[in-house]
């Protein structure tokens, strides 16, 4: 898998708000089962498993069987240098455009 494909998969993975939410929860909580992850979300367990698979395909999550359940764990080290540049650049434009909006609103 080339790094271009990897970056595409990463972007596809984090472009969805449910998947971003799942990722944040996994990073903060440590490994969890899909049953626990679905708590507080307005989607089905089946949908959560599907989202987790997309995250796994991007290398952001992996799964391990623990007894009768499958536990998912986040792998934040999958972020690449390119991803970091995009995040930083995007955040900078967020700040600038917020200032622009306030600037033109005040003239």
């Amino acid at each position: 898998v080339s790094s271009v494909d990897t970056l595409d998969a990463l972007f596809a993975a984090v472009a969805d708000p449910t998947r971003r939410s799942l990722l944040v929860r996994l990073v903060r909580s440590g490994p969890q089962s899909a049953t626990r992850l679905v708590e507080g979300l307005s989607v089905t367990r089946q949908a959560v498993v599907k989202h987790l698979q997309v995250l796994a395909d991007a290398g952001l999550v992996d799964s391990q069987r623990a007894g009768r359940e499958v536990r998912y764990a986040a792998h934040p080290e999958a972020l690449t240098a390119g991803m970091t540049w995009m995040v930083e650049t995007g955040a900078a434009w967020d700040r600038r455009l917020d200032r622009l909006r306030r600037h033109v609103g005040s003239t």
Partner: protein
Amino acid sequence: MAPMNDTLTVETEIELDVDGDAAWAAVATTEGLAAWLAPIVALPSIEPGASGRIVDDEGVARIVAVRNVDVGHSISFTWWREDAPADASTVTIELAPVEAGRTRLRVVETLAGVRAKASVATGASWVVALAQLTLVVAAVVRARG
């Protein structure tokens, strides 16, 4: 390893509650840019070939070179951090009328020749990055070079 011709693009847009003339004044004059792009905009003019220096709100200094100006519609410039001249990126800012008194502004920043270097984020910094990403990705599009 990423090939040297990889291109990264960040794209975002907003709608402003002003007409095209006011929006143009904000993006195509040094005074306008200094109000939002960066506190220090040391450019003699906003016209093709003009170059200067910009210092942003975090104290990062960039050299900027204006490439194209389509009056009332778009400007584009190339800029690079003074401490990283190899990472020049190109920014295009486009304006389009939405309705009377409302203008859409679109920004595209492109980094070409992405260096193939591995980067491993720590868990802690990644959480911060993801928080920023949540604000950004809805408007971010990645394009291949």
